[in-house]
């Protein structure tokens, strides 16, 4: 196994990294608007929609509600983007990374659990029934996908023998992990949709509860909530690249370009999933998560462990 060559850059690169993540989130929002334009809207207008929505929301006055817990509400809303930024801090862009933690995978896992708290707070804060229902739905569904996600994250760690993201990238120099861990990859992508309140796992923001956690958010808070969802999708897609898709490996382009290409492709796939799959009800998904996904992903980890022990 070649030595992992990841260079930790100084914290001064954090703002450009944040800008890169937000650009990816923007691209995701543009694609989402393109795939599902409002009736009567042309392509160009749909592409401009993130810009117009941002401008509109920045100027929109905030809604005040009786008895709202404003501090918790703002924390819930603003935290999503912050969590996404922290998630990508451990993703190596080719040879460079912001934080070369020895437990990068656990860092990502801890952050996606923080999203539980944030979405619930965003639902609790407004003191409104629909957003509260949305927050509770999120917790019920998160209990179902979280354990499969944890084991799906354990799978590459077992194969690489380390929790460090650079080691996981280095362990894929012969074959990418997505080839022999497809179950873990699919479960991981599902969980990314889950913690981004996206697509099949978005009952927390469902239309049947008037938008759920998004129902009472207005103005800059709404912008942060909506933008946070796209940012979390982008961060999840970015983290899948070193974990399952070989990091910066690829023929012609340099490492960092391949990381970006793979992230964009996976982000596009995740965004498109919303327009293809229906939203799953949390009480039904709970049974699927515990009775189907968890045993499958445990078998996947067993398979990986057998191969690793047998090969060494």
């Amino acid at each position, binding site marked *: 196994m070649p030595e992992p060559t990841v260079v930790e850059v100084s914290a001064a690169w954090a703002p450009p990294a944040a800008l890169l993540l937000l650009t990816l989130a923007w691209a995701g929002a543009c694609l989402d608007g393109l795939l599902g334009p409002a009736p009567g809207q042309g392509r160009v207008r749909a592409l401009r929609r993130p810009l117009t929505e941002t401008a509109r929301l920045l100027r929109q006055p905030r809604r005040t509600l009786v*008895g709202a817990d404003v501090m918790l509400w703002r924390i819930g809303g603003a935290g999503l983007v912050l969590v996404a930024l922290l998630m990508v801090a451990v993703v190596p862009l080719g040879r460079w990374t912001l934080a070369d933690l*020895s437990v990068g995978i*656990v860092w990502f896992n801890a952050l996606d659990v923080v999203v539980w*708290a944030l979405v619930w707070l965003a639902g609790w804060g407004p003191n409104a029934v629909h957003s509260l229902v949305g927050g509770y739905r999120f917790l019920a569904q998160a209990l179902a996908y979280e354990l499969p996600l944890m084991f799906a994250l354990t799978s590459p760690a077992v194969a690489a023998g380390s929790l460090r993201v650079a080691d996981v990238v280095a362990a894929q120099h012969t074959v990418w992990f997505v080839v022999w861990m497809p179950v873990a990859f699919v479960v991981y992508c599902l969980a990314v949709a889950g913690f981004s309140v996206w697509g099949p796992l978005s009952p927390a923001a469902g239309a049947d509860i008037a938008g759920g956690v998004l129902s009472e958010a207005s103005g800059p808070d709404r912008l942060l909530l909506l933008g946070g969802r796209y940012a979390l999708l982008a961060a999840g897609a970015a983290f899948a690249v070193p974990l399952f898709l070989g990091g910066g490996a690829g023929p012609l382009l340099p490492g960092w370009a391949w990381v970006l290409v793979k992230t964009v492709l996976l982000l596009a796939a995740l965004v498109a999933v919303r327009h293809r799959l229906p939203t799953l009800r949390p009480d039904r998904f709970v*049974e699927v998560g515990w009775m189907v996904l968890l045993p499958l992903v445990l078998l996947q980890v067993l398979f990986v462990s057998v191969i690793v022990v047998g090969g060494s």
Partner: protein
Amino acid sequence: MLEAIVFWTLGAVAVAAGAAVFKVDSMARATYALAVSFVAVGLALLLVDLHYVGLVTVLMMVMEMAIMAVYMVMFMGMNPALMPMSMVHGRRTALVVSVGTFLLLAAGALLVPWPSRRDAPPVDVTAALGEALMGSKMLVMITVSPVMLATIVAGIVLAAPRTRYDRFGDDLRGHPADDPQPGGVGRR
């Protein structure tokens, strides 16, 4: 120097948040104040090179507090509107005892002649923990797992309102289950 500042900040945050648990007006704030306290302790563990344990503490505690908030609201019935609440008994005794305990423990911490450090920490702390868990301390993990299983079973037995016989009928043959709040895909 920087480490000391970070540690004292985290320590102050942890203690202040812990005190806030019993002072704030709403259950959600109390629960998340406890979560902040735990996160501060988890981050403080990162300072002493316990990377894995610190992050796992943060992970588990945030998850636990998120679920616990639901239970707190359920039991205490608070809406987000902040209502003053102070439900204590024997407050003065508790204060005296806790201050006394703090003085005792602090005196112990400062006055006991602690031994010097035994060996150097391992180079890769996480890998060393993994080796210890799978090697010399395997029995500990083996013991913890039936304890966890027993906890799951006991928790469900205590908390579930309807037994198997309530749900499936006296001969356990009535499928799908007769629940007031149906769930699952409707298989059984």
